[in-house]
């Protein structure tokens, strides 16, 4: 945590500087008779963000904040594994939406999570993974009229069939 704290503060400070630089595309000063320019609000707020990060760093150097003295690691082995498996699963889920449609991605993600992370039985995992997207489809597309991404063209026949049912 000790090094994590300063690294985080540093990264956030750099991001604040980027935001300030980006805000400066528009006028950031006080325009006579018109009030602040278009970039002023985000620019000066980002400047305060930068100052806050510097304050965090000063505390770290002086060792006055609890985190600057903590020896606990940012994440232990189990924590990293969790972040990789769950976070990675989520990234995979979102990436799959563009390929096999929202509903296909839900099925794959649920199967992965329930069976391999949750260690539930195959029956329960497969059952929920199939039932959930089907129910979601009828809820969102049928009742709410909200269209979800359908993925690459190869899914078209399936969706044409499903839309035929609900409309």
């Amino acid at each position, binding site marked *: 945590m000790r090094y994590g704290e300063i690294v*985080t503060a540093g990264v*956030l400070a750099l991001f604040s500087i980027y*935001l300030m630089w*980006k*805000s400066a595309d*528009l006028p950031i000063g*006080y*325009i*006579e*008779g*018109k*009030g*602040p*320019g*278009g*970039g002023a*609000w*985000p620019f000066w*707020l*980002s400047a*305060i*963000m930068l100052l*806050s*990060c510097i304050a*965090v760093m000063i*505390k770290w150097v002086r060792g006055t*904040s609890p*985190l600057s003295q903590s020896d606990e690691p*940012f*994440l232990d082995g*189990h*924590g990293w594994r*969790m*972040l990789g498996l*769950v*976070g990675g699963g*989520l*990234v995979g889920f*979102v990436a799959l*939406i*563009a390929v096999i449609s*929202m509903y296909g991605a*839900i099925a794959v*993600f*649920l199967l992965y*999570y*329930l069976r391999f*992370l*949750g260690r*539930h039985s195959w029956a329960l995992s497969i059952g*929920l993974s199939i039932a*959930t997207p089907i129910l*979601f489809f009828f809820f*969102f597309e049928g*009742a*709410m*009229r*909200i269209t*979800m*991404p359908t993925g690459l063209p190869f899914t078209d026949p399936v969706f044409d069939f499903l839309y035929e049912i609900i409309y």
Partner: protein
Amino acid sequence: MEILSLLGSGMLLAVQPLNLLLILLGVTVGLFIGAMPGLGSVNGVAILLPITFLVPPTGAIIFLAAIYYGAMYGGAISSITLGIPGASTAVATTFDGRPLARQGRASLALVTAALASFVGGSVANVIFTLFAPVLASVALSFGPPEIFALMLLAFATFVGLGGDDIAKTIFSICFGLVLGAVGFDQISGAPRLVLFDITGFLQGIGFLVLAIGVYGIGEMLWTIEESRGEVESSNPKMTVRGMASDAAEATRKGWRGMTIGSLLGFFVGILPAAGATPAALMSYGVAKMTSRNPEEFGQGKVDGITAPESANNSASTGSMLPMLTLGIPGSPTTAILLGGMVMWGLTPGPRLFLDEPEFVWGLIGSFYISNIAALLINLAFIPVFIWMLRMPFSILAPMIFVLSIVGGYAAMNDMFDIWLILIFGIGAFVLRRFDYPLAPAVLAIVLGPIAEPTLRQSLLLSSGDLSIFLTRPIAGTITVVALILIFLPALKLLRRGGSKRGDKAA
């Protein structure tokens, strides 16, 4: 007296069999839509469209009012059970609702929210009935300087919301405000802060993207990590008697919050630019500020649920006022309603109350009936929501992830926003490990886009002279109160800073 007879006939209209059926159906549908993260009354009203052609306009509008009420009640449900605010109006409900549910008292939290919603809705209905036309002109006297002063006040009531580390709290507030400025500068009409020149940022960063990221993804990752995968699902029992004693407890401990929320909520709600979210936040802040034990807020205090919940219902009712009396939609939901009214040949605006009394009073009457129906149906469904919480965590967790992603897409209609939700979620998890409070950022992204344009409009009006916030009577009063509120606790905090550290060491 005339008002009472008009209201009476309106209510009679609402309890006709067909209309009553529409109310029950609408409230139920609205309740579940509101409970889904990402979906809100606007989606519910979208279902209304095909149905408006099957029933007479009065029936259609009654159905809409019922959905609107149901969704208002439903917003609290996902805040409490899942910890994800389904709509911006329910953010403040998570602060105390979620901790209470974690303590195994989800039923108390849900009953409290339902009861507070009912009280807020009822108070608002009465004020609405008695003073609608007068209040419309009050709302009009709020120009940009007054709205900005009000936003200042909203921020003021939130000083001290964040964690112990003041620098990190300030960072979080400013971060939320800057994220709210991304996309487009309304005043100069120029694109602004299009980060890394990705065109997806042109549309700005919506409140829901940040909220779902922080609460739906970030909090869940945090919970899974902290619990080492072995979350004890709370196992609350539900009985009618249990609910009755919950209701008694909610009233006893939460009446202060309900009073503050109902009154403050309504008055903030009728202001066209403000709406239910600032109303809920301010009520929470005021309830905390005026409490004898402010430090109990955020730990699952009943007043911390009643204040925002009664306020958001009261304000949602209040926000119908500018729509009906001025013909100005204050929210996407009221905009669709306005479109519907045009279809049925009604002109919303100053003359609506005179020209179409039957329609107006039928609508107001249905507010009363819907409010009662929503309370009863909500209470009846609480066991279902509790049962959901009893699912094993390894089933609940992936379901919440899926709901977050699907709900996020339903609300924003854009894959870019889904990736942003994921980035915010993982970012929030990391920042939370380092004690950065994130609630202030979520609030700031709601208030910032109201505060900045009104600030600059005011300064355009005054040719850059800041005294406009003090010289106009309403704006001046609010500004002075806000400044006092900001500086008093800040001074106290600074003075207390030294002793606090001593306390912790001891």
